[in-house]
């Protein structure tokens, strides 16, 4: 009799590889992959057409990949996962597989792992497609990291979508369950404004919570399948695992809610609430960053503070902020407190844009316009709600505010294609001069303030 290692990690890994191979060989999956890659590359190309004045194109790569994958992969993958989840039924192999010894959890988890890996491979291929467009059309921007990061940002949403789809398919025994899940994802995207934040799986702060929830669905499906196959009660350990995962997920959602968003039904972020107090601008540390922490910026008195705003509506602004930040650092060091601010609903996108554009340090999270009215810090600095590129405003040491102005004065007609490396250099040079002036004036105001407090 053969030596058998049931449910061992090696059996699980080998089954995952075979399931992955089968999934990738499926025609529908291949079509989806190529379609996603084409759409992603096209969106990136369109972004270049829409923003011919972008200083850097690699900084937009991750954003493009993420938007495209949210729009296509998250919608189509439930259909494919549900179809592939029942592949042995469709092929007429169900009884053969079910009469074999592996436990139901081994079968379910290996299948889930395969679908998830296949979806992630699709995402990475899309990232590669964008990078290819970038190195062919937008030299000298060569870095692949932004596109790769954009693809990897799908890791958690895909964990949820794949887990939810697989469990729905196994439970309903119908590939049509995929249509239902696609409808739900579509509804969440379309009706986002009227949904509670915690119900939006595409909102970055909730990604880990939804990822864990996806795993909970798989654990539950494994338990239910085992019970059906072995004619027993629902497998206890897997129900416990699923319950714990659901609890962890809910706790994460709860903690995210208090970290970024208030519990009020109206949209108000934590930073927005703080903005309402007059003391806000004297204590930069009370602001929330895009990564969900309080800012670590030193609220030194006696220096001017420059707030540079960018948004997801015109993501190329992040590069302008990064260039200004570099100029500020090189020109005056710490004589000016440079504070990048992201204006947008999803702080994760702001964080991604900052990383891709190479903005250093903390970025403050500012909520998007609410009912066409700008909110938070942006409101204090009268930032245009249709933020084009980046804007900057100054808080002088005496408490006076210089309202925000657009950083780049754009010409009426622009020829050629981005990236505008020449403009970038010019912005940096002018920044060096301007920051020296700002630092000097800030120092003067501070000195005056000390004499007459």
């Amino acid at each position, binding site marked *: *009799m*053969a*030596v*058998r*290692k*049931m449910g*061992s990690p090696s*059996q699980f890994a*080998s*089954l995952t590889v*075979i399931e992955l*191979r*089968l999934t990738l*060989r*499926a025609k529908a999956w291949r079509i989806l992959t190529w379609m996603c890659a084409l759409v992603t590359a096209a969106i990136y190309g369109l972004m270049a057409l829409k923003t011919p004045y972008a200083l850097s194109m690699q900084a937009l790569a991750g954003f493009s990949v993420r938007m495209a994958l949210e729009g296509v992969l998250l919608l189509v993958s439930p259909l494919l996962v549900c179809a592939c989840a029942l*592949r*042995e039924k469709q*092929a*007429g*192999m169900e*009884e*053969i*597989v*079910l*009469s*074999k*010894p*592996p*436990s139901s959890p081994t079968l379910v988890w290996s299948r889930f792992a395969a679908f998830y890996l296949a979806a992630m491979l699709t995402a990475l291929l899309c990232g590669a497609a964008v990078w290819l467009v970038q190195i062919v059309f937008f030299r000298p921007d060569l870095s692949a990291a932004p596109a790769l990061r954009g693809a990897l940002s799908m890791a958690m949403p895909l964990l949820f979508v794949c887990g939810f789809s697989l469990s729905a398919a196994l439970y309903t025994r119908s590939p049509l369950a995929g249509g239902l899940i696609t409808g739900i994802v579509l509804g969440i995207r379309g009706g986002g404004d009227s949904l509670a934040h915690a119900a939006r799986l595409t909102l970055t702060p909730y990604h880990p919570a939804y990822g864990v929830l996806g795993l909970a669905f798989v654990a539950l499906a494994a338990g239910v399948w085992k019970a059906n*196959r*072995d*004619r027993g009660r629902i497998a206890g350990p897997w129900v416990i695992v699923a319950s714990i995962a659901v609890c962890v997920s809910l706790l994460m959602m709860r903690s995210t809610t208090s970290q970024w968003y208030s519990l009020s039904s109206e949209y108000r972020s934590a930073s927005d609430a703080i903005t309402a107090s007059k003391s806000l601008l004297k204590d930069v540390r009370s602001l929330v960053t895009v990564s969900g922490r309080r800012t670590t910026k030193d609220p030194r008195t006696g220096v001017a503070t420059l707030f540079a705003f960018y948004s997801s509506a015109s993501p190329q602004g992040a590069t302008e902020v990064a260039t200004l930040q570099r100029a500020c650092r090189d020109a005056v060091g710490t004589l000016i407190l440079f504070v990048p601010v992201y204006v947008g609903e999803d702080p994760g996108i702001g964080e991604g844009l900052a990383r891709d554009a190479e903005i250093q340090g903390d970025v403050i999270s500012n909520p998007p316009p609410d009912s066409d009215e700008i909110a938070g810090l942006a409101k204090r600095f009268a930032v245009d709600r249709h933020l084009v590129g980046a804007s900057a405003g100054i808080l002088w040491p005496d408490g006076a505010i210089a309202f925000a102005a657009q950083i780049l004065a754009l010409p009426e007609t622009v020829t050629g294609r981005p990236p505008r490396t020449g403009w970038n250099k010019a912005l940096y040079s002018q920044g060096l001069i301007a920051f020296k002036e700002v630092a000097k004036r800030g120092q003067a105001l501070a000195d005056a303030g000390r004499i007459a407090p």
Partner: protein
Amino acid sequence: MLGIRVESLTKVYDGDVRGLSDVTLSFETGVLGLLGPNGSGKTTLMRILATLLDATSGRAWLDDLDVAADRAQVRRILGYLPQEFGLYPEMTCREFLDYIGLLYGLGGAERRRAIEETLHNVHIDDVADRRIKTLSGGMKQRLGIGQAVLSGPRLVIVDEPTVGLDPEERIRVRNLITELAQNRVVILSTHIVGDVSSAAHCVALLRKGELAFMGTPAELAAEARGKVWRARVEPAKLNELKTRCLISGISHSEAGLEARLLADDPSCLPGVLEAHNVEPELEDAYIWKMGDRTLVETV
């Protein structure tokens, strides 16, 4: 006890449809032919033994393992080929067997060796690297049998493995089953009597969910001894004759129309001109035991 043992197995489906009624049998090594018309309970019995279906009452054991209670262990010593099955068309034969080997938890080297042996044993080593979608029906059937025996199971269940195959392929599959049965139990379910007569060591006859007979093929054939007649019949009275007795074959000869009749005494039957008692074949016995005239057409 090694082998299979079934005690008072009953399966009642929804709507009070009886799939099996109080079936009791036991068998050790070799091929057990499960014979019976469609709907006689063959597949129900096999699915219960393959842990895919629950019996309403009664118990079954495979090598002392209770089929209902020790499902996981039973699956380890079981190879199953259902009546209607498909295989992943995009896989090659070798990949498919590799997948099955993994399901059985075979380790790397052992799995490779088992695959090569199986490919050879089921005579598909020449198409081992071809995609399954390019194989003929017979090759797929042999691959199906291959997956059932890959791990060297103690019990192999094959449900109607020769249906839809051409005669040459059918003989090949039958021989393969005989070869496989040398050191294990093979349950061969079929409604084709020829398959059982050439491959089975023992026959279990199922009729409407009940066990109608269990014994060797020779014993089954002997059940009809003295009741099989070769008779010359009047063509005009053939239809009437069909309603009065079982007919296992009709042929034309120089002397006229000849029929193979199953009857205690053919002389009192309408249209029988002349009758000689002949040695029964398995098919005759099968029809005799079933005692249902509609079966004649099936056979």
